[in-house]
């Protein structure tokens, strides 16, 4: 089961937008703030939530703190959504087998009656 912190972190549209941005390339918090017209404290707060959820990692490069996406949790989430679809797909394969058997049975009994 996926950690609730990931769901909570991604429930916010600004944070989802940040994740989407970070998926393309690493950014400093200043760059992120400029991209989204957010104040430094707001950016810092969002990044804190994303870090707690394990969605981003931070590295100090000289004077800058560079944020990078940690893709693990997102891949897990994507796999979860894919799994829902895969489950129904497998069930419909099973349905096809059941219906095929009903159809064959009906044909046999039709042929069987004179």
């Amino acid at each position, binding site marked *: 089961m996926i950690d609730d912190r990931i769901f909570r972190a991604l*429930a916010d549209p600004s944070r989802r937008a940040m994740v*989407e941005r970070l*998926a393309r390339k690493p950014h400093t918090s200043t760059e992120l703030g400029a991209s989204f017209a957010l104040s430094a404290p707001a950016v810092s707060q969002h990044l804190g939530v994303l870090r707690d959820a394990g969605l981003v990692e931070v590295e100090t490069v000289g004077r800058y703190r560079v944020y990078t996406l940690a*893709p693990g949790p997102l891949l897990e989430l*994507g796999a979860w*959504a894919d799994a829902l679809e895969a489950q129904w797909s497998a069930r*419909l394969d099973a*349905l096809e087998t059941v219906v095929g058997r009903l159809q064959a049975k009906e044909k046999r009994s039709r042929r069987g009656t004179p």
Partner: protein
Amino acid sequence: MARRDVTVSRVLRADARLVWRALTERELLAEWLMPNDFVLEPGRPFTLRTDPAPGFDGVVRAEVLEVDPGRRMLWSWKGGPVDTVVEFRVEPLGDELTRVTVVQRGFRGLRAVVVSAVLQLGWWNLMRGPLPRCVARLAQAP
């Protein structure tokens, strides 16, 4: 274009009548879906049972919400973190061909927001494109 539901469809080589039977008879449902105590009666709660998983006791609590006999059926579907509506549609295509479609929608609550976001096309593309590239980039860096 947003994708906020899970839709899976199949064309089966069988009469629509037989497909409907497989969707609405308890023993047949058990064969392809899950063991259950289903009764085809609007407003009637029933359960479907599968293996438990963390955060999920393995019991789906469902209820028949709507029935258009032979054509369409709507269930509520609550299991673990998932609180949704499942729709089954049966369309006769002639020549003993029938399209069956399952739509699971209406993910509610916090997880719902995220599932909806994840299922949105832009986000989906992110999963398929930039994200795998990001993973590849990280794999290259020591």
